[in-house]
């Protein structure tokens, strides 16, 4: 079993409260959580990554426990071995493309030098055709280049799974189609599991092996992507 997720969290606010109660088990390599914004998808993904703490539940990836309240397991985000691509990519604005990609490979209290070259970083830069912008800063990049830099930064450390939060939302339509194709092929090559959240049906149709609908803090059954159109 790739994913075994069972998460609960309650927010009680002054005006309204939100209750998240998401369960799914899946062996799908390219799994998409699909639902409107505010359904709790982002929160679910953050809890899987360890960036938010659930009230109760468990998260298992490939049989390994990342979080299990009952057994008092709660690995820090650093120790979960996951990769996370944020919706607006969260590239470090003070670092170049090379430095961003090398960020996780570089230990210690100082950032990688602008001139530092890691073999793995160079390989990803070539794979994503980022050579011409390797020494530029994120704000100088196009949307597609930003997304590729974020993917390279996430994948260079060889994560156990790739989590993607609306990775195409910040791009224009024509680019989206092309990059979906690129990501899909890449994931087939790498063979690491992907969990993507989106509110865009086209992401589901062109990327997903299976889809789970999320609505109002609840997850539905796993479905074929085609079932969405029906």
């Amino acid at each position: 079993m790739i994913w075994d997720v069972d998460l609960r969290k309650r927010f009680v606010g002054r005006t309204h409260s939100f209750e998240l109660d998401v369960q799914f088990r899946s062996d799908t390599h390219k799994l998409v959580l699909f639902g409107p914004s505010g359904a709790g998808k982002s929160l679910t993904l953050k809890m899987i990554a360890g960036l938010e703490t659930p009230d109760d539940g468990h998260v298992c990836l490939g049989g390994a426990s990342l979080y299990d309240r009952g057994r008092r397991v709660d690995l820090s985000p650093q120790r979960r071995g996951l990769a996370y691509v944020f919706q607006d990519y969260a590239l470090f604005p003070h670092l170049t493309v090379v430095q961003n990609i090398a960020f996780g490979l570089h230990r210690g209290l100082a950032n990688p030098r602008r001139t530092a070259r890691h073999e793995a970083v160079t390989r990803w830069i070539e794979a994503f055709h980022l050579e011409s912008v390797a020494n530029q800063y994120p704000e100088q990049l196009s949307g597609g280049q930003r997304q590729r830099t974020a993917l390279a930064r996430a994948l260079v450390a060889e994560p156990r799974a790739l989590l993607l939060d609306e990775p195409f939302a910040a791009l224009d339509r024509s680019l989206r189609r092309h990059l979906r194709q690129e990501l899909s092929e890449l994931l087939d090559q790498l063979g690491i599991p992907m969990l993507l959240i989106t509110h865009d049906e086209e992401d589901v149709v062109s990327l997903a092996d299976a889809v789970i609908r999320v609505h109002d803090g609840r997850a539905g059954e796993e479905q074929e992507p085609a079932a969405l159109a029906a």
Partner: protein
Amino acid sequence: MAEAWIPLGLTLKVAGWATLLNLIFGVALGYLLARTRFPGRDLLDAILTLPMVMPPTVMGYYLLVLVGRNGPVGEWLMSTFGINLIFTWQGAVLAATIVAFPLTFKSARAAFEVVDPQYEQAARVLRIGELAIFFRVTLPLAWRGILAGLLLAFARAAGEFGATLMVAGSIPGKTQTLSIAVYEAVQAGQDGLANFLVLVTSLTCIVVLLVAGRLVPGRVPGQS
């Protein structure tokens, strides 16, 4: 005008030390208040901002009461380390540090608050430890705002008068900083010396403000 260079050197020494202490404590406390929530946070913020609104002589009086020979801190310093701060240049550093502190602290807190926590989250997932995240992500992104605050703190410390006079007095060559020397020169009718000291002080402050103005927050290193 040789006697003008001694107070200038002393002023730079005192302001330099005060700025260094501000860097350490202002950044640490600014980060603490920007990134953590705890009971009494607003009260702590108010207390740390107090030196900005209180008359320096009142701050100086507080310090005298605390670190003076009979004060609780002063007595402890004397019995434990044999240190006396009153009428010493180190006492002047203490006074300048505290009076200038809110400028660094406020700037640092504001600079940390505008750093998007998402960058820190991204670093966490990339398996970077919390201390390294502070030095590799948070501090570089907040640095310009902190630096601008530090320069203002340096200028404020260099111009300190009231609290310094209360704590360190006006001993020529020992605790007599520029601003105090100006006062003494005017009192003594030494108009030439006073004019010169005022000119030196003004030029120093203009330079500091010009540098601080080039470091307005919101710009990130690496941006052209």
